[in-house]
Every structure is written in C-alpha cells, then in structure tokens.
C-alpha cells in the first residue's frame, strides 16, 4: 500500500491549490479539452468502461446511469451535483471542494459534455460555508477564463454552472429530495418511477452525481480506463450482478482513533488497515468494539468483522446496508452501544422528512424507546419491538418512498443483532445514564 500515489487528493495541501492558475499548471482542464474533442457518446462509453460507480453511497454505475437519459432529447438536460454531504462523519467531498475545487468543476464540465447538458446545478449543503466561498470563486475564475459560458474553446459547447446552497436537511441528499429542494420546494422525495434521468429537475431529464464521482470522471479522462481499473476489487464471480469496485476511494476516518482524517486508497481496504495504518490506531490504547463502515445509515461492523474489505460488496457480507460513503467511525470498547444507538436514532428522528408514515412515526418512536431504555426503564421486550419497528420501515419492505428509512432502520437492526447481550445487560441492570427524559428528547 505504501506505493500508492494519491490522485484525487494529489493537490490537496499544496500552496494555492484552489486557484485556477496552479490547477492549470498541474495540467488542469486538459481532460475537459480532450473530452470536448470527443463525441459525447465516447465519453459516456469511456466512463462506462472504467466501471466507475457513484461515490455518493449507493454505488450505482455512473456510465450506466448516464445511458438512462432519453435518446435524442431536445433538451434541456440537467446535471445536478449532490454536494449535500450530510451523512454523519463524512467529509470527503468537503475536502475536494475546499482544497481542489477545479478538479470537481472539471469533472462537472466533462460530465455535462458527455450527457449533452448545458447547465449544471451544484447543490451544496448549507453548513459548508468555506466550500461555498471557494467553489464560487473557482466558478467565477472559470467563467473569466472562458472555461464556462458560451462556445467553450470554440467547440460550440455551452455550459453554465450554478452553485446552489441548501437550507440544511439530511433529506436533501436523497436525489429527488435534492431536486425538489432545487426547485424551491420542501425536500420531500418523489415517487419513482419516473426516475430523474427521465423526469427530474423542472420535469426535465436530470442526472444526479456526487462530488467525488465528478473528480473520478476527471481522473478517468486524464489517466484512462486501465489506470482506473488497475486498482480495486474485481467483480465477485459468484454474483453475476456485481460490476466490481474499481478505482481510488476517499475514506474518512473518525471516532475513537488517534489520527482522524481523510485518506485516498484503492477500493477494498479493510477497516482494520484504516484504523491501524492510517488512523493511528484506537485511541487511549483501547480496542475497537464496532466500526461504522460508511455513514451511520449503513449499520455496524463488530470487532471481528474488521477484516472485511471496504468495497461496495464488503460491508453487505456482514449484514450492513452497504459501503455507503466509506466514512468509518470507530467506537471503542468503553462506549455503550445503547448510547451510540440512541444518538443514531436521535439523528434520524430529527432528519426524517415526515412524508411517509412509517418513517415519520417509526424513527421518532425508536428514539423514544431508546430514550426510555437509557432512563433505566427498558424492558426486555423493547428489543424485539425495536427490531420489529425497524424492520417495517424502508424501501426494502416497500413501506416508504425513499431510502432514508432503511438507513434509519439499519443501525437499529444491526446493533440489536450484533450486540444484543449488551442491550439485555443494560436493560436488566436498569442502568440509568440520564436523569431527565426531557433532556433526551431535546431533538432540536
């Protein structure tokens, strides 16, 4: 691993890394120029061949998503960039946007050319003030340099990039919630089908991609498919539907480690490697009790599941929802899983958009039950109730419109399954970690 050279983060930390001047000096926007010389369909095929899968969490193959757009559509077609990075403990997009915005913008420009879109909306989460300023400055630079605007490089290709700042809600990271929010509405996810590629923003075909995906597109244009496929995990021969997990990935490390941060590594590293080799080990000399593989909505890996590769398939083998955002949160052995789970539940109860009944009421109920358990008033049957409630919500059973609910339910199901004795012990001993239920129910 020590021979691995970061590409996505290559410019991060260099002086003036945000400026167009340094970016161009490092060969920036050559990929875009190259793409403009190619037919859009060739760019789509290139990305398709690379096996690039969306970095936002679900891991849907990016090139394949692009092909879902209607053929010969008169337009407009929109590209919406999902920079509503609101999964707890995830900050890889932020680093890209704050430190190397032009890499992202170049990826956007290339992607727009590929999908024949002349307008990209960059939906940025409200909390990222610095990203907003850096990105806006970078966009202004691009317009001034003729990289965005009308007839770029005499190619006849027009491109406008609009930076839109959200109003701080987790649900805006759901692609149709994001689209509704962009349209100025309450971010209630839409019923699918129609998928955004058919009818999205302003009822026009729309592709929604993640920031890191855009950076990967740029790197693929620069370095080629073979470079991208030279790292990662090939498809599982036993699973015909697995397209493999190729390319570099930004892993975020947080929680109880000595050295939290964001590192770029080939797909398929294990949690143990991340903790020990890049995170400086678990803090205070303790051991890891559990690890969140990629955002809390993916569930938990227990201490004996830390050697699973963190590719798109790995965490699923341990009963997690998926790789998610590849942001690991380490939980040490001195931490109560009841407390961890309560914190998760509080987050999702706060962030449920409130559209579908099971999620709106279920997330809040789970939060209340866990609050009661922490008050020392838990009963053994609560664990089954929690599992039942969690099991009844989400798009997997088909009871909700979007996947927020699955993400809210997964840590509950996972934790109770993997750490049940700890929960039972907690309830049995009537341990009371908080005095007043009011303090617990403070969501806002």
């Amino acid at each position, binding site marked *: 691993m020590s021979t691995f050279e970061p590409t996505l983060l290559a410019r991060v930390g260099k002086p003036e890394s945000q400026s167009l001047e340094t970016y161009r000096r490092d060969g920036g926007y050559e990929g875009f120029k190259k793409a403009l010389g190619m037919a859009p369909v060739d760019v789509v095929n290139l990305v398709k061949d690379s096996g690039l899968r969306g970095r936002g969490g679900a891991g849907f193959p990016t090139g394949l998503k692009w092909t879902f757009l209607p053929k010969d559509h008169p337009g407009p077609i929109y590209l919406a960039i999902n920079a509503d990075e609101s999964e707890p403990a995830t900050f890889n997009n932020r680093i890209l946007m704050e430190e190397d915005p032009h890499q992202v913008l170049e990826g956007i420009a290339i992607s727009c050319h590929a999908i024949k879109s002349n307008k990209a909306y960059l939906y940025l989460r409200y909390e990222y003030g610095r990203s907003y300023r850096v990105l806006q400055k970078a966009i202004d630079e691009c317009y001034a340099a003729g990289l965005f605007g009308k007839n770029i490089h005499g190619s006849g290709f027009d491109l406008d990039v609009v930076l839109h700042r959200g109003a701080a*809600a987790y649900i805006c990271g759901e692609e149709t919630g994001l689209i509704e929010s962009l349209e100025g509405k*309450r971010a*209630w996810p839409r*019923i699918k089908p129609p998928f955004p590629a058919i009818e999205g923003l302003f009822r026009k075909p729309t592709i929604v991609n993640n920031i890191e995906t855009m950076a990967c597109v740029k790197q693929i244009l620069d370095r080629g498919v073979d470079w991208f496929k030279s790292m990662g995990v090939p498809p599982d021969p036993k699973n015909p539907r697995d397209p493999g997990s190729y390319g570099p990935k930004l892993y975020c490390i947080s929680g109880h480690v000595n050295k939290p941060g964001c590192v770029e590594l080939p797909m398929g590293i294990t949690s143990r490697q991340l903790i020990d080799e890049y995170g400086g080990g678990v803090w205070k000399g303790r051991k890891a009790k559990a690890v969140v593989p990629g955002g809390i909505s993916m569930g938990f890996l227990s201490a004996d599941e830390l050697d699973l590769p963190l590719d798109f398939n790995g965490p699923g083998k341990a009963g997690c929802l998926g790789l998610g955002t590849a942001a690991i949160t380490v939980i040490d052995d001195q931490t109560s899983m009841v407390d961890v789970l309560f914190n998760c539940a509080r987050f999702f*109860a*706060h*962030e*449920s*958009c*409130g*559209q*579908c*009944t*099971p999620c*709106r*009421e*279920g*997330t*809040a*109920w789970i939060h*209340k*039950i866990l*609050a*009661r358990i922490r008050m020392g008033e838990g009963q053994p049957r609560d664990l089954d*109730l929690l599992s039942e409630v969690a099991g*009844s919500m989400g*798009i*997997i*059973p*088909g*009871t*909700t*419109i979007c996947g927020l609910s699955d993400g809210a339910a997964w840590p509950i199901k996972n934790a109770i399954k993997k750490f049940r004795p700890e929960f039972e012990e907690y309830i049995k001993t009537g341990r009371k970690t908080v005095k007043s239920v009011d303090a617990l129910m403070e*969501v806002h």
Partner: protein
Amino acid sequence: MPTVIVNNKPVEIGPTEKLNCIQVAQRAGDEIPSYCWHHDLSVVASCRMCLVEVGEKKPDGTIVMQPKLSPGCQTPVKDGMVVVSNSEKVLAAQKATLEYLLLNHPLDCPVCDQAGECGLQDYSYKYGRGYSRLQEPKNIKPDKDYIGDQITLFTDRCIMCTRCVRFTREISGTSELQVVSRGTHEEIDIFPGDPCNNKLAGNVVDLCPVGALCSKDFLYQQRVWWLKSKNSVCPGCSTGCSITVDQNEDVLYRLKPRENPQAQGSFMCDEGRFGWKYVHSDQRLTHPEQRSGGQTISKDWDAVLPALRSALKDAVLKNPSKLAVVISPWATVEEAYLLAKFAKQISPNTRLALGQVRVDGEDDLYPKDIHGKPALPTKFTIRAEKCPNRRGVEAVLKQIEGKVVPFSTILDQVGRGEIESLFILGGDPEGAVAAADVGKLDKLKLLVVQDLLVSPVTAKAQFVLAGSAWAEKEGTFVNHAGLAQAIYRGLRGPEGSRPDGRILMELLGRSGLFHASTLRQEIAGAIPELAALIVGDLGEDGVLLSAAGKAELQPVG
C-alpha cells in the same frame, strides 16, 4: 378486455381506462384502505395505508409476485396484473401503519367531531391492532383556530395525509395551507396573517380523513350518528352541486358535497355550504295570511286558500288579461308546472313570467393562479347566476306560455296598469323582488306572495302563503348544463308552513299527495324539453335533459 386479478377475482377494465389498485379493488368489491389518496388530487403515496402486493400473471399461467409491497394508489393496473390486498403480509403492513398513525394521535374520540365518520376509527376497527405498544408520552401540538374563518385545526389529530394542502394548491389554487417543521414534529399551518379563507376552504374539512380540520360552524353541534342525511342539490347558484342535507329533529346542521361527476365533481363552495342559515331564520313565515285594508282576516290554511282562489277568480272576471303569475327560478320544476297549470286554469289569459334571476358579478373559476386569475383547466365554478332552477322553470314557461317573459317586463306592465293582480312564487332568501323594485308594486289591486321569509313584498300582499325552503321539499332542479337532479325533503319546515308543492296541489284542486316522481312523469309527457324526466326517479346523479334525445326537443317560442 384487459383483466386484472384482485384477490383471486378477475376484474375487467376498459381498454383505455386508467385505474389504480384501489379503484380496481373497489370494482371487485374489496376495500383497500387509504388516507392520502383522493381521486381529484395528485398522488403522493405517503400515508402508506394502501400497501398491497402486486404481481403478474405470465402467459403460461404462473403468477410472479414482486417481493416488495407497493402503494395501491400509485400503482396503475394493467392487463394480467395480480393485486393482493388480503395476504398476511399486507394485513401486517396495514396494522403497522395504523399503529404508527395512532402513536401520536390523541384518543379524544368522545369529544371529537369526526367520531363516527372518522377514517382512523373505521380503519383501526377493521385493520388495526386494537392496542398500542407506545409507553412514552405522545407529541403535543397546539390547536390552531386561526387557520381560517370557517375552519379550525386540531393539530395533534392530524395524520399528515396532506390532502388539505394539495386541495388548496390544486383545486382552489390559493395555496394557503402548507406543511411546516419536519418529521414527527411537522404540522399543517398557514403563512402568518394569510388564513385559509378562499371560497372553497370548507372542502378541506370534508377532505380531512380524521378530526384535525373541523368546521367552526358545525363544531360541537351534533354527534354525527344522530344526523339523518338526505340527498339534495345546493340552491346557491346554477352549478347545482350535489349535496347531502344533514339534520336532526328538523334542525339542519350542515351541508356536505356529494360526489357527482355530472354536476360539480367532489366539492362545493362555502357560499353554498354555509348559506343555508335562513332556513332557520326567525323571519320565516309560519302561517298563511289573508289581509284586507291592513287588517288580518285569516291565518288558517283552510280559509285562506279558498279565499285566494275566489279572489283570483274575481280579479279575472273583472279583467281577464290583468292577472300575472311570476315563478321564481328558485321553484322546482314540479312547482313551476303546477303553478303554471293553476294560472291557466284561472284564466287562459293569465300571463306567466320568470321571477327575478339574481346575478352576482361573473362566474368565479377555480383554481386561481398566483395572481388570483383563473388557471386552466377549470376544476370548479361558482356561477354568477344565484338560483338553482332557471332552466327548469324556463322549460315550463316555454311550453305553457310559449315564451319566457322576464320579471322586469311584468314590473313595467304593473307600472303601466296593464297588470292589476299578481301572484309571486318566491323561494329566494334574498327576497322575490329586489328592494329597489318593491315600490313598483304599489299600483297592484291584488298581490299574492308565496314565499318563505318575511319581506317588504310579503308586507304589501293581500295573501301570503307560508312556503318552504328547498331542504324541506322534494322536486327537481335543472342546473346550468341541463342536468335534472332530484332534491328530497330533508326536514320539516316550521309549523304552519307547507311545502310549496302541496299548497299548489290544493290550489289546483288536485287530490292526493304531492309526489315528485309521479309528477315528473306527467311533466315529461307534457313538456318535450323535459322528456328525460320520464324515468321518474332521477337517481343519485340526476339525468341530463339532452339524454332524452335531441329529436324530441322542440324549439319553442
């Protein structure tokens, strides 16, 4: 024909019909419970009450079911589709959804207006769990009586189906209601200072499947199981909305729209909904009266009616062409027919005319756009013509008088002394004669007024007949589009008043009871334009006059 299999029952659908699972199940006689879905509003599929299993019957006969539950409202059916709404999986999902909906719902049914007609009660009973596993405190949200002049919101009863929000966005177009906050804390609310007072606002109360949105007018007035409902037609304008009249012990409590695609659709306006208060006005006429020189001679029906008949005959004997009879567009077809017959019985020269047709501005079309202008397609119209039956009365007049004489002509003729005796059949709560015109009647030698409220005109009359409001009688109204709908007697009028049809039967000297169905058949034979009434019973949705066949319609006049 495309066929869908619902709970093992094959259901045929039309080749171009667009139905969802709920509708196709209805056709199979099965209920798929739902809250947020309403056929006149957009589909949001958010309440998750209508979850069903769907699948497909392959050509080889095998059935492949989808592993996930699907919302029935959002899933269109097509040929060969299989819908299952009674499997264990579906029942479990229904149970779970109801448990969720009840988690924070206060069980205040004993003091809730909706109890007895509540979607949450009914479905809990049918599909629910019967007990709650919630041990924690419920959410408490503030009641909002500021939400509208006519509506109030019991926020904690709300199940967030957002029907009301979609109504104000899609049907009225006024967008006052919205969802604020998020998750389990979300509430229906208005923008501060912009209450939901559009002219269709009352419909959100009907749309609310629970007791969250309540009508201030009806609030705490009655338990709904005491109410008796009769089908009727709103007389407020010529749209002729199908409604029900809900009363208890002869007291009218509320009007509710009744779905009728041939008339107005599913809704009604607030003008009509709350415009019935005159029915119980203390100004109602409660007895007939014969007066002479300012003195009351009799208040007894048995004396007044014969006296009236002979007074009219005397008038005709003196001058056969100076009697006119005015029939209000508030009269039913049957009343117009009986009165016209009576008029011609007194003298073939009696002039017949249409009563005052009140017109208020222009037709009010909904939905509105953000500038308050009507937006297309039109989904609801409050018509400027404020009477229920101009077309029906005109049809009678055209046949029997040969033409439709407007009331203004009669007033002119009274002024010129060409008419000395006048019989006015009213019904309009605003009065049979506009205030400005009442003085023109001073020249009359004989004035007969059959109406329901005391007015300057009744004060002038030598004969006053205490008639009935529309809710107190049966008959037929023909709306602007020529739809003949039946109204039924929902309640009895004040003691001493009589249904207008009965009064006219007696004047005409007809024996037997006033019976609208029989009369309709007689009218259908006598008046070709009303030939469609031959069915007698007009059904719930009414009959289009044009349905009798264009060939039978004779141009008159």
